[in-house]
Structure formats: structure tokens, C-alpha cells
């Protein structure tokens, strides 16, 4: 397996971006799933559509919208620029792109986990004196763990493979914003670098397989702890 120093940087950057995007999206994704599953409110359909939109839109379109929002003249970009924060063409932009694209998968998995909770368990906790936040942390959260695990794995894997939105908002700067897919894209453009591209592909497969194994292991561990 042939890996150049910038490939190693791309691997670490990919892992860093995917981990950060997953970690940042988790609380948000959990809250959105909880709202959709347990809270009746007006505009729920709109929230569901908005959350799922990145799943149906081409990632390049998402990247372009993010560029409009976070760019120097964008609504959010302008505000950030005033505080001296620049996101575009940094690894943080890659995180935002990955988080946006992966969020629907995370929310979907957590939602499925939450929907499988018997409502009477929540009724029981309430009649035993637990307030909504107490029920959320002592009943809903632990019983959604399978969904959270599945969603996190999916989101991490999706972030690893994120290309279209990332290249638009973060660019393809080796050592700074170049992740594995972007590096493979670069190698694939030149016929002499097929081996290098293949090496990175193998690394990609290895990371994905490891994530899936970790997911399986954690799920089994969770099931075993419940069965005791």
C-alpha cells in the first residue's frame, strides 16, 4: 500500500471531520428526533421536510447553498466575519458540509429507535413523578441508544465519503481541507496515480469496515447489558 505524507494528512483530516461532524450533530439530531416523535406542534411536517431535504438534494446543491450562507457576503458569513471568524475553505467548512449532508441519516435512525419505545413506559415514568427532562434522560435516551449508535455510525460513514458539498465550501487544499475522497479525486484525474488512488480506496474500505464492526460490537454489548 502506497501512501504519500499528504495522504496520511488526508486520512486524519477525514477522520477528524467525520468525528467532529458526528459529535456536533448528535445533540441536534437527538433533539430534532425527539421533537418529531414525542412533541405535537404546528409545523412538524415542515421540520421533517427540512431535515430530510439534504437526503434528496444533490450534495453540490447543498454545498452551493452553504457557500451562499457562509461566504463573505452570506447572511451568516457576514456576521462571522465581523467577529473575525472565517469558515469557508477551512476544515470547519468540511465539518459543516458533512454535518448537513449526514444529519437526515442520523435523525432517521434515532427516530426509529425512539418510535420503538412503548409510550406506556413514558406514561409510567410520568406517573412515577418524572418531569419531561427527567423522562428524556432516564428513559428515552437510554432506550434510544441503539438508534443513536446506528445513526452515528451511518453519519460517520457518510461524512467519510462526503465529496460534493465539501469541495464547494471547503475546496480541495492538500494538508488543509483535502479529505480522502478529494484526494482520490485528484489521483483519479491523473492516469499515473492509479496505485495511490487504490491505496486510499483501501484505507477508506478499512475505516468503513472498522466502523461497522465497532457498531456491531457496541450494539451487542448494549444488548448483553440489558439482558443481565
Amino acid at each position, binding site marked *: 500500500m502506497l501512501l504519500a505524507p499528504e495522504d496520511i494528512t488526508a486520512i486524519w483530516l477525514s477522520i477528524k471531520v467525520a468525528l467532529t461532524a458526528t459529535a456536533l450533530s448528535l445533540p441536534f439530531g437527538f433533539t430534532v428526533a425527539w421533537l418529531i416523535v414525542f412533541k405535537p406542534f404546528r409545523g412538524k411536517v415542515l421540520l421533517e421536510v427540512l431535515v430530510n431535504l439534504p437526503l434528496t438534494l444533490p450534495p453540490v446543491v447543498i454545498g452551493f447553498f452553504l457557500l451562499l450562507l457562509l461566504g463573505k457576503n452570506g447572511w451568516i458569513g457576514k456576521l462571522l466575519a465581523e467577529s473575525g471568524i472565517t469558515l469557508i475553505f477551512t476544515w470547519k467548512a468540511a465539518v459543516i458540509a458533512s454535518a448537513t449532508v449526514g444529519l437526515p441519516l442520523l435523525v432517521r435512525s434515532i427516530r426509529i429507535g425512539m418510535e420503538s419505545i412503548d409510550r406506556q413506559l413514558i406514561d*409510567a*415514568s410520568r406517573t*412515577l*413523578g*418524572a418531569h419531561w427532562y427527567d423522562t428524556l434522560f432516564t428513559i428515552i435516551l437510554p432506550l434510544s441508544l441503539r438508534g443513536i449508535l446506528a445513526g452515528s455510525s451511518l453519519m460517520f460513514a457518510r461524512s467519510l465519503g462526503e465529496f460534493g458539498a465539501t469541495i464547494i465550501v471547503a475546496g480541495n487544499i492538500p494538508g488543509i481541507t483535502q479529505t480522502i475522497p478529494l484526494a482520490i479525486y485528484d489521483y483519479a484525474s491523473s492516469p499515473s496515480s492509479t496505485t495511490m488512488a487504490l491505496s486510499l480506496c483501501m484505507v477508506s474500505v478499512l475505516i468503513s469496515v472498522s466502523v461497522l464492526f465497532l457498531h456491531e460490537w457496541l450494539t451487542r454489548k448494549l444488548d448483553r447489558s*440489558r439482558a443481565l
Partner: protein
Amino acid sequence: MKLHIDIEKKLGAFSLQVKADVSCERTGILGESGSGKSTLMHLVSGLMQPDKGEIILDDQCLFSSFKKNNISAEQRRIAIVFQQAMLFPHLSVKANLLYGFKRCHTENRLIKPETLIDLLKLQPLLQRGVEHLSGGEKQRVALGRAVLANPRLLLMDEPLSALDDTLRFQIIPYLRSVSEELRIPYLFISHSLTEMQLMTDQILEIKNGRCINETTAEQLARNRMAQSPNGYINLLHLSNPQQESGLYTYKWGSNTLFVSAGKHAEQSLFELSSREIILFKKHPEAISARNLLDCRVAEMFDSDGRVGVVLSANGEKLVAEIVRQAADELNITIGSTLFAAIKASSFRRLA
């Protein structure tokens, strides 16, 4: 305990409109499936909000559409034992039991975990995961969890219907102990008259979302005797079994009864249909039935053309059912003496 309910709730095509005052500590809510029993329970517990009306428990207004007052379910201190135990699957038995207790204000913690664990015999189960419990054990833990929340009122929503007959009657003494030993008033919801006879002193009968009758299980059993396929069900607590030539003898007060389906347990609960009892005016010379009780008629009642004869055998009560013609022919009146013949195989052991 004083519970005042005057509420209305519309759920699609179904509408519930109940007005009742409950002061009895062991009250039953009886009705067919879909009559509104569970909706009523949800409304009283605060899990559902009435459209209109008020609910007052011991002078505290839990809900009033007039005063725009609604105390949330978590603050009402009304615990529920559900049909399915609904134990938290990610917690141990001990953590389940203490869930409500930990959330109960210190000044309200009158029932201590140790007392309850002893009473419900839960000690061997404490460290186990709830998935490894049998149906009856789960329901006992669910009862313990609800009681340890130290509620002002306990709602039991058909807590026995998911259990088979044997388990059902094994759990009943535990459910009764909640009121007898711990003095927690309860509303017991069921569609089984036998359960009501064992668990309650007063009954609200619900039909199509309306409270149609306030009565007792005993009265209801008498009223329904003629239509019921099993007549009136006598529930007998028998003790001290001895095996004797293939049969069991049991003590029933100062009487001795021969029973086929006995068991070596200090106390057992048996049911006996009123239709399994044959009455004789005089002592029959020879009879195949193993039990012949010398009785006095304590009371008589009508049930759709049938006559219920309440017999007293050395102070123990038993209801026999005969047709009006037989009552006239035997000239049965209150105070007259009769012989009641019962086959040993007529007793059905419940627990």
C-alpha cells in the same frame, strides 16, 4: 379518600361523560372493552386532559376547566399499574422499584423500600434484569414500583388480564395487601366480575363512556346470576388440606369440605358455581355427592326468574341457585333449614 369526577372527553366518535363521587378505598371500575375504562384512568391520572369538567382528589383540584387548572401527571401522585407490567427494560428490578421512590418528596416517603420488598417477597429478584422475570414476577415488581412512589391513589388498569388464571389469583393477595397493609386507596379497572369480587368493595359500572351504575361486586354478581353462564360464583378460602382416599379435605370455617382438585398449600382459593349446589329439604338417605352441608337460609334474592338462596353453614355463606318453582315446592323461606349437596369435583381451585 374522596375523589370527585365530573368530566367530558371526546375522542373521535367516542365520547366519555362521567360523573361520580368515590369515597371507598377499594373501588372497581367495571366495563366491557371499549367502554371507556382506560380513558377514564388516563384522565384521572393526568395523562390525558378532559375537554370539560373537574377532578378533585381529597379537596385538591387536579383539573378544572372552569378554573383553568390542570396539575400535570408527574405532580398528581397518582401511580398506575398497567395491564402489561411496563417495567423499564434498561433498569434492574431494584432500579425499577426505586424509580418513583427517588422522585418522591422526602416528607411523602411513608412506605420504605425494605417494607415493601418484604411484603411483596421481591428480595430474590432485586439484582435481576427485568427481561428474566416471569409474567407474575413482572407484575409484582410493577406493583412495588407504583406503591414505592408513595401515591395518594393507585390506579390498577386490568393488571391481571395479561396473566393466566393460576398466576392471576396468585397476584391478587399482593394487590389486596396494598390496601390492607399499606392503606393506599385504589381504583381497580377490570372486566372480570370475579376479580372485582376479590378486589373491591364498591363498583362504578361504565358503559359507552357513561357511568351507568354504582353498586357492589356482590350485588352485581347476584343481579347477573341468571344470565351468567356460570351462575353466581362463590369464592371460598379453604385451609388446612388433608389427603384422604383420593380426595382432599379442607377446613371451611368449622365445616369440612371434600375437594377433588386439592393442593398441599396452607390456604387455597376455590370457586364454586351456584348451579353446582343441590338443595334438599330433608336429609337424603344415600347420595353420591361427597359434601352434604347442614344449612340455614340467611337470605333470598331474585335474579330474572331464578332464586338465589344465601345459605349459612355454621356461619359461612354460600349462594345456591334454584328455579322459582323449586323454591315454592320446597317452601324455602328465610330461616328454614336445608341440606346442600356439592360434588367434590365441583370446586375449581383458583390459587
